[in-house]
Each structure stands twice: as C-alpha cells, then as structure tokens.
C-alpha cells in the first residue's frame, strides 16, 4: 500500500494509536464498557459536530451551533408542558430556521460565514436569555419521561443517546452519499464555480447546509436538555470548540470538499479519547489545557490529507 492510499486512513489510525497508547499505560482504559461509555458520552457533542460537518464541507464555518443548542435547551424545557413529544419536532425546526438565517446572511448578503454565524448565534443567545427569564429551568420529571423516555437510559447496555447519535449518523451518511443534496454539497465544496456552471442552485444548497447544521445543533441541545432534565441559556456552553475540533481533526479541512460525516465520527472519538486520557495519564489540573493543545496539534498534523488541500492557509 502506498503512502497516498494510506493517507485516507490516517484519521482512524490516529484514533487507534491514541487508544492503544493510553491503553498501554493503563489497561483499565481498554475495558469494553469503558470504551462504550466514552463513545456514549461524546454522543451529544458528536451530533452537533455532525451538523457543522456539512457547513465545513462546503468551505464555511458555523459558530452559531452552541448558541442554537443553548436556546434549544430553554425552548425545549418551556415547550414540554405544552406540546409534549412534538416539542422535539418544533425544536429541530426552530434550529433549522436559525441555520437557514445564517445561510441566508452568508450566501445572499455575502457576509463571511464566520461572522454571519457568530452574529446569528448572538441572536439565538438573546432569544434563549429572553425566553428563560435568565434562569435555569427544570423539566417536570413525569412529563419528561412521558415524552422523551426514548432518549434516556440504556438498551441492552448501550446508552439510548448513543443509538440516536448513530441513527443520525446513518441518516447523515445517506444524505451525504446517496442523495442529490449530498452530491450537490460535494460538488460545491470541491468546485463551487463548476457547480454553478452546471446549473446547480448553489445558494439554496448552501442555505440548506446551514439549516441542516442548525437542525443538528438543536437536536444536540434537545438531547442535552432531556439528559439534564432542564435548560438554561448557558447550559450547552463548551460545546462549540470541541465540536469544531472534532470535525477538523477527523479530516474535514476548512477548505471544503474533503472529508465527511464518517470523518467526524472518528474526530469526535479522538476528542473523547484525548479528553479522557488526561484522567488515565493523571495530567495535573494546571497542565490539562497544554496537554490538550499539544496532542491536538499532533493529531491534526497526522490526520489532514495535505495532498488534497492545495494551499495551506
């Protein structure tokens, strides 16, 4: 196998290397239930990363995801007594709406997505703060269990949220590989001008990507709200950077057209392993940030396929 062919496999090789490395230092780490739990715990973050993948795949970025998730935790908690289980649908639609607005601002008003999503995120944050009355809110336990028992607990030892995340992954994978939308995303990411000249409605597809990202962000927020049985306009803080890192470290570079949702799965697992490995390697509290940064640089250095990225900006 040549190096060229091997490159494609670098992300999961990196993941495996990390796992083996940490496992060698503490064999407890390799216990199946531990690995299962590690994967389960990253599920919510992974769902958000999954959505962001589509935007990055088109060469943009979505910085509004965390704010949308924050807002969703609040809205979900508020709507649960009124709408019951259909709260989930409403939340996802609202998330998609915010994503769509980001997409509109970015594609139609030509504001770079970095700024557009940051700004729309600010709006989402305001909505969340306003709706919550600037307090943490709690879900009624009975109502939660009535409407959302399918989101919590385990099936055969596997956390339900992990199953949901996997279902979403399969959905995203089908979207990416098997649908016209996914094909259009690929074309736009790899060669936007050619896509335009082929008569694709590039603007619409881009807005769709942002809307999908918003919907996934809302889903992540919803999962988190149900898991924590409440909501607050700050609750999903700390999601954004790890989610973006998961996308990037998985091998979907910001230049677009390369990578995909499977890469994000690997990236999210890499993030989870790095994070958890700090416990197993007993990294002192004050050194954890440095450790994260340095391992991240190493992981990214291994996972990006530079052959497909023309200039390194």
């Amino acid at each position, binding site marked *: 196998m040549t190096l060229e062919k091997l490159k494609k496999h670098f992300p999961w090789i990196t993941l495996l290397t990390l796992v083996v490395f940490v496992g060698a230092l503490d064999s407890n780490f390799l216990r199946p239930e531990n690995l299962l739990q590690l994967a389960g715990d990253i599920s*919510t973050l992974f769902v958000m990363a999954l959505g962001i993948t589509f935007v990055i795949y088109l060469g943009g970025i979505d910085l509004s995801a965390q704010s949308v998730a924050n807002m969703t935790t609040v809205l979900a908690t508020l709507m649960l007594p009124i709408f019951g289980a259909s709260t989930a649908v409403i939340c996802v639609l609202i998330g998609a709406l915010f994503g769509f607005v980001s997409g509109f601002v970015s594609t139609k008003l030509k504001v770079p997505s970095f700024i557009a999503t940051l700004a729309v995120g600010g709006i989402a944050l305001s909505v969340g703060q306003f709706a919550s009355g600037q307090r943490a809110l709690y879900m009624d*336990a009975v109502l939660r269990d009535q409407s959302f028992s399918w989101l919590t607990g385990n099936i055969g030892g596997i956390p339900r949220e992990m199953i949901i995340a996997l279902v979403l992954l399969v959905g995203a994978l089908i979207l990416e590989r098997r649908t016209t939308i996914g094909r259009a995303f690929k074309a736009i990411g790899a060669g936007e001008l050619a896509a335009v000249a082929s008569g694709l409605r590039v603007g619409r597809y881009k807005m769709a990507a942002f809307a999908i990202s918003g919907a996934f962000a809302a889903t992540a927020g919803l999962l988190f709200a149900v898991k924590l049985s409440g909501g607050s306009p700050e609750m999903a803080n700390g999601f954004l950077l790890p989610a973006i890192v998961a996308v990037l470290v998985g091998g979907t570079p910001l230049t677009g057209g390369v990578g995909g949702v499977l890469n994000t799965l690997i990236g999210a697992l890499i993030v989870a392993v790095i994070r958890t490995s700090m416990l197993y390697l007993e990294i002192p509290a004050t050194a954890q940030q440095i450790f994260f940064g340095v391992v991240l640089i190493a992981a990214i250095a291994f996972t990006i396929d530079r052959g497909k990225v023309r200039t390194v900006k």
Partner: protein
Amino acid sequence: MSFIKKFIEQEAINRRNFLFASAMGAGGLAAATMFKAGPARAAIEDPAIAWSYRDRTNPYWNAIVSGGESFVESIGKSKADLINLINEGSSEKSLSDVKALLSKTNGKLALAIDTNDSPNARPVVEAVVEKGAFVSTLWNKTADLHPWDFGDNYVSHMAWSDVGPAEQTATILFKAMGGKGAIVGLGGIASNNPAIERRNGLDNAMKKFPDIQLLDYQAADWDTQKAATIMASYLTRFGDEVKGVFCANDTMAYGVLEALRAEGLAGQIPIVAYDGNAQAVDLIMAGELLATVYTNPYWGGGITAALAYHAAVGTFKPSEEPHEHREFNGPTILITKDDAENFKKQYVDATPSYDWKDFWGPSTGAITY
C-alpha cells in the same frame, strides 16, 4: 451476579421515578419517608478522591481546591492524590469527566463536585449512584434533587444562602449613601443560582430604603473587563447620578473600580461586592471597597471532599443523618472596614486549620426552598 446488581439498581431508579410521580400528588411526603433508605453498600476501602469544578483561573475555585488538598493531606495522602476535574464552564465535559473517572476507578470514588449548571446535578448523581461511588455536591443542584432520595451514595449538598448576606451588603451600601440616591448594579451570569440570589438580596434591601433608586442592573458575567466596560457606559448614561454600586462578586468590583479610577473617582463612589477574595479585603482596607462577604470556600472545598470520603470509607452512614446534615448552608462572614484587618490576619495571611471531621460545625443550618 451482575444481573442481580443490575436488577437492584433498576429497582432503585424505578423507585425514584415513582417518587417523582407521587411527589406530584398528595401522597408525596408519605412516599418519601417510606423509601427513605436507598440501597446501602459496604464501605469502600481507600477510594480515589476527586474535586470537579469550573476552572483554575478564578481565586474562588483555587481556594476550594486548596481546602480539598488540605483535607487530603489530613488523611495522610499527598496533595497530588486529589484528582482535579475541570469542566471549563461546560456541563457536558463535567458529566463526561465524572463518568470517565467512575469507569476508571470502577466506582471506588469519593467525589466532590460543583456541576456547573443546576440541571447537570441529576445525571451526575445518578451516574455516581449507579456505580456505587459517593458524591457530595456544592452550589448547583435542582430543588427537586435531594441526597436522602439516594440512600448513602449521595452524601450531601452544601450551598450558601446568598440572599441574606447580599441584603446586608446592600444595606451597608445604602447607609453609606445616607439612605437615599441612585445606584447601579452588576450581576453575574444571569442564570447562575448565586447571581439570582444576590440580586434577590439587593431587592429585599431596596424595599426597606424607599429613597434608593436602582438605575440599571446588567449582567457582567463575573468578568472583570466586562464590568469595567459596563461601568464606564453607566457613567456616560447616568453621569453624576450614580451614588453607589452593587456588584454580585469581587472580580466584577475590580473592573468597576478601575473604570472609576480612570475617571479619578476611585474611592469616591461606594461599592459593595461578594466572595471575600484577598484583593477585595485589601481594597476594603484601602477604603476603595465598602464591604464584601466571605463564604469560606477553603472550608467548603475541604468539607465537601471530607463528607464524600468519610461516607465512602464508612466513618458515618449518611442515611442515618438528619436532613439538615445532608443539605446545609455554608458559613458566611461579612467583611467591612472595621473587621477587614482582623479578617486578613485570620484568613488571608494565615490559613486557619480545620477539623475535617467536624462536618457540620460551621454550617448555618438546613437549606430551605
């Protein structure tokens, strides 16, 4: 064996669900006492001890950790034996870290934790209980979550009732202003419990001083620089009207003070704050800050870890303790210019030594909702 264990745990969870259901109805109280004792487990030998908290960039949390370390040393271990879990303001990381640690230690764990956001307390406690480890919480938990619903494993919850002390600082501020005039306020992250309680304290005090007017109250998110910017803007908006400033914590007060210093107003407009950090105490002695409230995070950090540990090793059985020993308020000390020097000598320059087995001595009683 594991099948039986699973069954018992499942039962415990079902019971909790039932409890919630019945708590809605009239039979709630009776049910609660019926199922008071959860599944008691044998004591853990030499559990790992961990503190999970928000960040290391804040003197408050540093004091918490120092207390935790002091406790760890008191049982003949080294400081490094205290495992630090830092959530960086992320509930998601907080929960994942706890689960990972539970898995690593296989449940042989005594955990002290502030769960970052109150809704996060339930999943954390449930995860700990499921693994048979022991947890004591600090600050954040929802009102419907109680240690006694989880048998021994959810050992205790400590918080501080900030309403009263905040009312006291506000009163000191109003009196310094001669009982009349206008003030501005700076709050913490709006949805945080302490931020809400401290604001309530201010409101309570205002009721007693009808001539005091609150011009505006904005959240500066506990952040020094944000507070400086907001204070500067207040000065533009209200000009000389501002006769006093109420800050929900010390770090924001520093920002307020620097915004005033830039205008040559430092020390001229009275400010009250909260937390009792060393710098704040110095500022009180210098006359630039009027009052703050010390919550003794050092003791809080130590005793929370101590409770979890001693419950884990079986020194005491939590389920046999009264409710006021499972949910209690920590001590608060009001610091003004009169007692600042004394306070500094006692708490800042020297670290008081505590008996980490006197779990409830300094506490100020049960938490009321």
